[in-house]
């Protein structure tokens, strides 16, 4: 039981971070970022290159992941999403753009890093063992703590800084924010960069445990969408709850139903559909976002 709970916390904290970036981008621009999973993979590969290949300290490699993705996100927003949102008759057209970017990033990853599974040396050795009831490698605990710290830092940024206040205003009502003197274009770009940066940060953190490969992008995006849906689209606290809930469902499901394999995911998806049919705005979303 302790093991299941610990796995749940570990999975949940990672998932919450992935969902946070996605929900931030959605809240600000109403864009479903299909390329989120690919951004996560790129973050993983950047850390792999710096830490695994060139022997740069892990923390520095993580920072490089964040910076790369933030620049990438800012460029994508500035030169692709912003003009398309302005020019299209229906704002759903951005979905095609997002999917195109997902394909593009996949192609770039394939050309630059190849399709092999990549891993990096462990950051800390050893396994935490509590009476054989709770077994957890130290690096997982470290990553889990780092993820929780990043989430706390992100919430702090959103709540207590000027940038965070502007972003929250933008998410609430774009026009009103503009009328109050918020530079909408600039903060959209910052928000998108921040969301992409979070994806890169998770990728960099997780490469130390699961490694990274080309095929991880798509499934990660789908999982992130689910978490955002559970919590409510475009709500920061909702994304965190969604991540934790999905993490625990997976941990419990895989532990209880392990002999049936994919049944766990079938059950998760079906219950999600029933939940959404009853409560479409998720746990704490605004209706008809």
């Amino acid at each position, binding site marked *: 039981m302790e093991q299941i709970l610990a796995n749940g916390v570990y999975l949940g904290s990672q998932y919450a971070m992935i969902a946070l970036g996605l929900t931030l981008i959605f809240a600000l621009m109403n864009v479903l970022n299909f390329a989120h999973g690919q951004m996560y993979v790129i973050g993983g590969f950047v850390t792999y290159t710096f830490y695994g290949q060139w022997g740069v300290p892990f923390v520095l490699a993580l920072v490089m992941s964040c910076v790369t993705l933030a620049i990438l996100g800012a460029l994508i927003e500035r030169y*692709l999403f912003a003009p*398309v949102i302005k*020019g299209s008759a*229906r704002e759903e057209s951005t979905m095609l753009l997002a999917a195109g*970017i997902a394909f593009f990033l996949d192609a770039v990853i394939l050309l630059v890093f190849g399709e092999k599974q990549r891993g990096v040396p462990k950051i800390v050795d050893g396994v935490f063992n509590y009476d054989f009831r709770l077994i957890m490698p130290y690096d997982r605990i470290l990553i889990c703590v780092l993820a929780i710290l990043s989430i706390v830092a992100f919430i702090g940024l959103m709540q207590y800084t000027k940038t965070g206040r502007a972003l929250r205003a933008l998410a609430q009502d774009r026009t009103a924010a503009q009328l109050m003197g918020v530079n909408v274009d600039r903060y959209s770009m910052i928000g998108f960069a921040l969301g992409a940066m979070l994806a890169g940060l998770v990728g960099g953190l997780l490469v130390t445990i699961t490694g990274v490969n080309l095929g991880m992008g798509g499934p990660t995006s789908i999982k992130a969408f689910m978490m*955002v849906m559970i919590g409510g*689209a475009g709500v920061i606290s909702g994304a965190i709850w969604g991540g934790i809930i999905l993490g625990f469902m997976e941990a419990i499901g895989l532990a209880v139903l392990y002999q049936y394999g994919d049944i766990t995911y079938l059950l998760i*998806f079906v219950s999600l559909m029933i939940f959404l*049919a009853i409560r479409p705005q998720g746990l704490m979303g605004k209706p008809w976002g």
Partner: protein
Amino acid sequence: MFGFTAKQLTGVGIFLFVLFIGVPLIIGATGRWDFYFTLTSVALLAIASAGVWLTFYIGRINIGQGAFALIGAYVSAILVVKAGWSFWISLPAAGIFAAIVAILIGLPILRLRGVYFAMITLVLTQVVTLTALALPITNGAKGISNIPLPSGVSLFGIPILPDFAGMENTKLAFYYTACILMVITYAALYRLVNSRLGHLCRSMQQNEELASSIGVNIAYIRIVIFAISSFFGGIGGAMFGSIAQSVYPSSFQVADSVNFMLNCFLGGLGFVFGPMLGTLVLYFGWDLLFEFGKYQMLIYSTILILIIRFLPNGLLSLRFGKGGDK
């Protein structure tokens, strides 16, 4: 004639000529027989995309067409292989089964809008794929293979449809079948959009509450539209299974559902023939770029991004489309 302008009729005439006579002549002259398979796939995917376009027409983003295509493919395959039905009866049966599933699922989920509907249909695709893996009748991950080719049909001793198994050139036969199905689908779609139901759909697309307040039965219409849409999906999927002679849970996945949606976006949501063009460009373009080897994906996605960057309302917003502008 029938309220069409001469220009529209010429357009349709040219299109049908190219489809049924021009393409086989060109392929015969160039010897690229593999294009038959590509173009047949395009025609079938265009049928499924037409369904997605129809749900867009009532203002819903549908990322669940892969689910209905998979259902159609499995229903047809099971009826042909296990129950010994003729393929030509199983084809409408597959469509109708998909439509019934759509009605049952649509009753609760069609109340949702915007991204919520998009996401729940995306999840639906996953559910159907995983169900196909888990159910005994679908044979799990092994899928159903060795589906026999469509058999002949004769009425009162007069052959109506030839036996595909006894034919020398099944590729051409499948090409014609798929094209005929596609033409019927789009004719039906055009008729539907220009009917009273089509006008009601447009009113729903703009504002559901307003439409409802002036007496449009929106709950009924969206179920009907979703059922028709899924019917197209089922037909397309069933025909695909018959051509590939096999169905697996991975035949139609989330990526396929997303592609169906992209076809509609690329062609243009405001045009009946948008999804057909979108499917042709996306699928055929991907095939043509095969020669670039490992750069195929890079070039393909770059073109895709450029198109949407400079033509955000779809290819047909350039107005070189003929006929059916809506």
